[in-house]
């Protein structure tokens, strides 16, 4: 049997291809928007995965190290490590800052980690080049998105760090790439003031008569020393023993150490439900509108495409073609256009996604949903067109 739809497409292939291409790019944009939304959520999730922690111990009455600033003493981890169910506990600091790279600067999240054996909580889980931090000072592992290469020098505050390793997909909830440096350097970077303010503070202290008393040698020195000491970290990451109940351990820590503790679920709730809630809803809203508009445009394109062939359909009717054949032709063409558009959309989305500055996650599940939606839209739109086609008077074929 001869395929009427195929013959018709071959007849007007230029028009069909261009329509398919336009439709495809539109679907591509919609898929990308979905990817942007998923990427945003994934950035938040990956931050939790990469920290390798089951529990986050933070300052009392604060919302963890990511959503709010938190500051606890750096020896708190020892008490945490002694709690039942805890396998390992490690200090961590987070500081989002501009890091100089050559003549320009990169926005990055500087993470201070305990430079122990790889696999401790807080350390990057995998590398793409180089090695982990082996010295307890002046080494860094950077996310490749920062643009650094191994051997590069990074200047953060007053110290210069050598990039010894690279990793990927280690980002903050805002999508800023991470730079891992040893904890003690990070504490300095976060809490130590710049030289000018240290000097000014010393001068102020020295001119305070109650702190610079004649007759008490050493008092001024000890006051200054205590002013420039920093013994704080932002959080303690806790990994639990296999089979330990996170809630139970968290309750112990809350009760006996009087620190706030978040489990993985609570942390996810904080990140997704509070930290990126409005921006992700913003993108989500835009995605919904874009999807609705795309669906409408697909429907109109199919409808107008059919209406453009109204004279040919009348001729078909005139020569006695069955209604079923005409319906099949329109349906096949609509679905064909949908499939072609979806393929072009998926391909284009995949090719331009990596050029986005932030992560775009194209999930297979979204692709399947998108495909189903496109086909459903095409079928629905073709119903409108079919209705118009079936009401065509065969006399129009010969009429003016």
């Amino acid at each position, binding site marked *: 049997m001869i395929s009427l739809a195929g013959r018709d497409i071959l007849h007007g292939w230029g028009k069909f291809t261009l329509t398919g291409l336009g439709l495809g790019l539109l679907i591509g944009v919609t898929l990308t928007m979905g990817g942007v939304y998923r990427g945003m959520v994934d950035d938040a999730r990956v931050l939790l995965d990469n920290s390798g922690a089951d529990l986050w111990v933070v300052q009392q009455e604060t919302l963890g190290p990511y959503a709010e600033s938190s500051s606890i003493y750096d020896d708190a981890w020892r008490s945490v490590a002694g709690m039942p169910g805890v396998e390992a506990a490690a200090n961590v600091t987070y500081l989002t800052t501009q890091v100089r790279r050559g003549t320009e600067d990169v926005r990055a999240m500087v993470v201070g980690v305990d430079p122990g054996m790889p696999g401790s909580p807080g350390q990057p889980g995998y590398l793409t080049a180089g*090695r982990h931090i082996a010295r307890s000072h002046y080494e860094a592992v950077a996310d490749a998105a920062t643009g650094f290469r*191994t051997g590069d020098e990074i200047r953060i505050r007053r110290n210069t760090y050598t990039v010894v390793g690279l990793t990927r997909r280690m980002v903050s909830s805002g999508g800023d790439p991470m730079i891992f440096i040893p904890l003690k350097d990070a504490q300095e970077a976060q809490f130590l003031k710049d030289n000018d303010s240290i000097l000014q503070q010393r001068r102020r202290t020295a001119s305070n008569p109650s702190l610079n008393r004649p007759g008490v040698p050493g008092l001024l020195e000890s006051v200054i020393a205590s002013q420039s000491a920093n013994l704080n970290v932002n959080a303690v990451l806790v990994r639990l023993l296999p089979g330990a109940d996170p809630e139970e351990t968290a309750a112990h820590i809350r009760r006996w150490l009087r620190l706030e503790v978040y489990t993985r679920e609570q942390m996810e709730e904080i990140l997704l439900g509070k930290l990126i809630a409005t921006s992700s809803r913003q993108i989500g809203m835009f995605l919904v509108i874009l999807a609705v508009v795309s669906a409408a445009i697909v429907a109109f394109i199919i409808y107008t495409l059919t209406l453009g062939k109204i004279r040919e359909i009348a001729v078909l009717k005139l020569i006695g073609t069955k209604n079923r054949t005409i319906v099949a032709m329109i349906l096949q063409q609509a679905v064909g256009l949908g499939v072609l558009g979806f393929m072009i959309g998926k391909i284009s989305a995949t090719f331009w996604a990596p050029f986005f500055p932030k992560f775009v996650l194209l999930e297979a599940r979204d692709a399947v949903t998108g495909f189903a939606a496109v086909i459903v839209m095409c079928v629905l739109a073709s119903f409108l067109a079919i209705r118009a086609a079936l009401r065509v008077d065969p006399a129009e074929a010969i009429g003016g």
Partner: protein
Amino acid sequence: MRRVWRTVLLLGALLGLAALFLFVMMRSGPLAPVPVTAAAVEKRSVAPALYGIGVVESGAVFRVGPTSPGRVREVFVEVGDRVEAGQKVAVMDPVDLDQRRAAQEASIARLEASVRAASARTSETGARKEYAQAQSKRYDNLLKSGAVSVDAAEAKRQERLVTAAAWTSANADLQASRAELERAKADLAALASQKENLDLLAPAAGLVSARASEPGTTAVAGQAVVEIIDTGSIRVSVRFDQATASGLRAGLPADIVLRSGNGRVSGGAILRVEPVADPVTEELIAKAVFSEMPDPLPPLGELAEVTVKLPPLPETPVVPDGALQRYAGRRGVWIIINGAIVFRPVTTGRRDLAGTVQILEGLEGGERVVVYSARALTPKNRVKVLETLEGMKP
């Protein structure tokens, strides 16, 4: 004919599109293989090294200052001067010390005169006593012969006793005056050494590192006026993270890099590991000495990086530390067997500064392991082994 060609061309384009679509579906997203690099597990020895930072300090810092409160009169040295042992570096204001000495000298002169007077009195009473004794003896003899009366003899005897007592008293006076003179002389000597004590002397040869008090300043007891450092014992006080400092001991060779030295490495050795660690910073403290003292001398307080080389360990299987990943709560490596990956938990030993880790259990050597991967692996992942992952799109 043209129509057929067109159909073939269109079908071809369609097939190409479908092929590209399939490729895209397979090469991106969860179905795509994870790019990795691989390496064979070597068997070799690891020479771990310890890394710490410290500050340049001197083994001895002499804070020279007064032992009692006073005003600084003069400081004779400038920062950077070299001083000899015993050199006068500063002097404190003596206030009334000189006047007190003059007063003391005058009172000594007075006491000397009073000693002379006492001595003369002794001679006088001694002469009286001897005369009275002789008279008493003669009158006793005359009484026996009945030439004098009993009364006269009694009077002479009493006179003898009185003069003897006067002599004893004069003698005692003389002793008292002499003792008083001694005391006054000792007081004078004390004032002299107090005066000497106001001269601040360098206790040892060294370099003046600070003029802590300028002339006119009132310094309390124990406050430094001049600080002198012993340049012979310049060394680096290094701090090592306690968690990674096993094997640190005296005598190990150490490379010292001064922060101002532009990366230049000076040789040295660990002098000693301090018996007391820092419990707050969780660090061990060790002293590293230069094998050859840098010239010019590094300023005290400058930061220095110290790398201590430990002796090589016995041969074991080793992997780069990038190969260690965590999966299902355990630390291990991903082994590539026939293109598929299998997780193998391992027990790690020590690591050197180049990131090579000893594997104590879990690997025999010769296995191919994943070193770098574009993301965290799971056993379901397919992998694609590449030469390098550097330069891949982030």
